[in-house]
């Protein structure tokens, strides 16, 4: 809109900044206060005596709450990393096959994969729980990672498929003329060219993993596999953990995705658009 008055954009810019950042500022603000300070009316809009005590007690303190926060942080990192790696490897292979090879049944399989993206996420929740019970994989990293991969792999395949289709074919052909096998072409030509798409997909997959709550709530039964999200929800539900400490735990849980989202924003935007517009 050429003639749009600049003040409207200024309001828009101000709105975006306040809307996105005020809630995050506020949880940060609470996490730096003491319980007494937090109860003030009206509230302290900046911490009167900023202190990292809440963080220190979570990261170094003894007792049940700090222990479960630390253990569940390890769990969430392991689960998200493993799910991301498996998803990316399997989705890259499949996407290459869909994008560059002809084979009987390709379209049926491809459209089936796309169709599962339209499933409401929780339609498979109860059967997956029962399958994992049957396989003895409830409350194991393996069980959680398998379920994550099954949930994330359709979108990852779709993004990588679109990305590989957009790559120039000429380089691959010259590789084949030089006598390289198709797997060598994939490894030495396609994957290096597709690296930005792979990075996008990996970031999005990792963030989706970090957000999971209902699936791990059902699939893990104790602190040996519970991710950070499940532990934080449990602490909040008990109403015995002070809000300041809970806020500090919340900040710990958003640091990783927030840093990724701010630093690698370009990859996220391009990946999300490759995954949804067609």
């Amino acid at each position, binding site marked *: *809109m*050429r003639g749009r008055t600049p003040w*409207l*954009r200024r309001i828009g810019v101000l*709105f*975006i900044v306040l*809307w*996105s950042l005020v*809630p995050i500022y*506020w*949880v940060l603000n609470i996490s730096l206060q003491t319980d007494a300070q937090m109860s003030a*009316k*009206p*509230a302290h809009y900046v911490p009167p005596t900023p202190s990292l005590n809440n963080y220190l007690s979570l990261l170094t303190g003894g007792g049940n709450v700090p222990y479960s926060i630390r253990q569940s942080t390890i769990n969430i990192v392991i689960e998200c990393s493993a799910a991301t790696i498996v998803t990316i490897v399997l*989705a890259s*292979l499949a996407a*290459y*096959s*869909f994008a*560059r*090879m*002809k*084979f009987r049944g390709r379209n049926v*399989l491809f459209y*089936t994969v796309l169709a*599962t993206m339209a*499933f409401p996420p*929780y*339609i*498979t*929740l*109860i*059967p*997956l729980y*029962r*399958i994992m019970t049957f396989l003895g994989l409830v409350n194991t990293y393996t069980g959680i990672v398998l379920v994550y*991969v099954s949930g994330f*792999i*359709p979108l990852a395949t779709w993004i990588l498929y679109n990305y590989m*289709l957009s790559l120039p074919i000429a380089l*691959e*052909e010259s590789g*084949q003329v030089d006598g390289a096998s198709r797997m060598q072409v994939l490894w030495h030509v396609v994957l290096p060219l597709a690296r930005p798409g792979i990075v996008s997909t990996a970031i999005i997959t990792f963030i989706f993993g*970090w*957000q999971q709550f*209902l699936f791990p709530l059902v699939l893990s039964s104790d602190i040996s596999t519970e991710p950070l*999200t*499940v532990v934080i*929800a449990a602490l*909040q*539900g008990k109403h015995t953990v002070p*809000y300041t400490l809970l806020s500090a735990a*919340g900040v710990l849980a*958003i640091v990783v995705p*927030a840093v990724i989202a*701010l630093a690698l*924003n370009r990859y996220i935007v391009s990946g999300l*658009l490759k995954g*949804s*517009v067609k």
Partner: protein
Amino acid sequence: MNIATQSDNPRQLRRRRARRRIDLLPYGLVLPLAIFIVGLALIPAAFTIVQSFFTVQPLNPPTRFSGFDNFRRLFSTDAVISSIGNTGLYIVIGVVLSTVLAIFMAVTLQKNFFGRSILIAIMVLPWALPGVVEGIVWANIWNSNTGLLNSLLTSAHLIDNYQVFLGQHRLLTILAIEIVQVWQITPLSTLLIMASLQNIPNDLFEAAELDGSSPWATFRRITLPLIRPGITIAMVQALIQTLNVFDQPYILNGSATAGSSLTMQTYFISFQNLDFGEGYALSLLMAVATMVISLGVLKLVYRPVEF
């Protein structure tokens, strides 16, 4: 949509055929994906469909066919009925609010200006955060004793006493909870609408300006009709998210009926009452509802656009 394959020129094809009748490599490459899709998506979905017509209760075996019994029990449970209403409200509030906000943000970010890419990063930020933690973040804002909103309203002398936002009035509770979800889903909607905006040729806006069209008229007559494809996808994704809302009401309202959603009922029925059959039935109904309403939105909002 066609899947383009470009690698097979006739000579290579002949050479490969000579070597082996069936080319096994593409099957090998898609096999792991196929195993995941069949084993952990299709079979579970089929399970849900079939077993919703069975009584499946671990504490009351065996599993036995029971026709529409699960569905009948669902519709005679008060908590389920009130959750249907709640979820309807979540959908309407969430889809409308996130779409309107996304159009506003996308138009703000349409033209290039200094700091635009940083602003996009800030805009995307809430999308990346876990719903559970967003619940914690916003609990600090809605809280009736120490919340930011109460504090601001008091400081501005708009209220005399701190108010309770969650758990008392049904509509207010649902609005407060849904705002938290809107915070999470609006960034993706904004990106989708921005992509649509970028497809509009610039000469259209220039022509409108030459003709003396006001900014509002340009927005109504040019921008809005031409971004309908983006708006449609944004509304469908918002619809799927809001219909399945779980994390935010679970954290902000616990199990209280004032804001409980259908996904929460599925969880309670299956994993607290241990009535899997009824849980299957509810999941199945929600899946059907998702598809029907999505198609409805598509029919109502989508118009093909050509430049």
